């Protein structure tokens, strides 16, 4: 079947909308997810010191068009925020330990 020429360009655009192997939108999404996770961690007092700076670096990489770097940094920041959130939840019942008497 011959693909009508007029359908090729819209087809490509549609493909990128779906995020089909588009590094830009993948990195973008990762940064947004990192920010969301950072806020979640912060809401329970569990955010780590460097998470915000890593997100800023990811955003800078996005601006520069360095999508692989942006993705890697965003994933690192998101993971930190997840760990910080879990840590805060685990420590919500923190109290005198057995040795402190």
């Amino acid at each position, binding site marked *: 079947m011959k693909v009508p020429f007029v359908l090729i360009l819209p087809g490509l655009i549609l493909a990128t909308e779906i995020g089909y192997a588009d590094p830009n939108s993948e990195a973008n999404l990762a940064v947004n997810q990192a920010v969301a996770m950072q806020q979640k961690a*912060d809401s329970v007092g569990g955010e780590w*010191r460097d998470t*915000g700076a890593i997100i800023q670096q990811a955003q800078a990489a996005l601006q520069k068009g360095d999508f692989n770097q942006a993705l890697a940094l965003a994933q690192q920041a998101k993971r930190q925020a997840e760990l910080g959130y879990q840590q*805060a939840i685990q420590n919500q019942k*923190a109290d005198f330990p057995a040795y402190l008497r």
Partner: protein
Amino acid sequence: MLKKLTLGIGLALSVTNIALADLKEDIRRFQHYFFTKFPQVPKMEYVNGVYAIDPVGRENWQAMEEFPPYDPFIDQGKQMWETPFANGKKYTDCFPEGPAQRKNYPHWDKKRAMVITMELAINECRTANGEKPFNYEKGPLAILTAYMANASRGQIIDVKVPKNDAKALEAYQQGKQLWFSRRGQLNFSCANCHAQNVGRLLRSDILSPALGHAASWPVYRSTWGELGTLHRRFHGCNEQVRAKPFELQSAEYRNLEYFLTAMNNGLKFNGPSSRK
């Protein structure tokens, strides 16, 4: 009706008793840990921080105390205290008793349902009189509180968690929970260093006991090269364990100060002080 009243009173009393018992038992347990660890250290000595448990450091510190680095700031602080605001009022209008205010803080304010610290009270005095609030970390506030702390030397630490006030207890519990919580990428709680490993060496520094930690502020720390407040130290410690610090004088840090100072009940305020 009588049944309901009795039940009500009974419940209130039991809550009160739990609250009182909690605080007294927490203090006893907290202090007993250190007394057992360092049987040679007299109770009142703990306000000298690491110098209570480190004989070599103590010698150096005592030599420094002949010309303490915080001394000039006491005089500067006195100047600040005596200088009227632009509107003609003075600090004595907010604090009629005078500068020796340490014994009054931190305390639970029932009406505002929050812990009030001395530093917060100073800034509220300033803003109420049309002055800009001070930075909570260092600088003018640390200098003014150096004067006030010096005037307060010898006052007994006696933080109260009021009866029948569930919110006060909650603030105390939050402070306690924060002190015992592991935080940051390095996963440390205040307890890890200042209780669990107290007296041990972190690289070349001896870890100081938490008993005494609320007594000596503001502190001239050699690493800072200047005076700093307790909340500055909270902030710094949080950063060192790679936790995002809270805001100075935030509810978190005020509640933490509330718990920590209560654990120091019975000791005497001895600020300002110098530390490594």
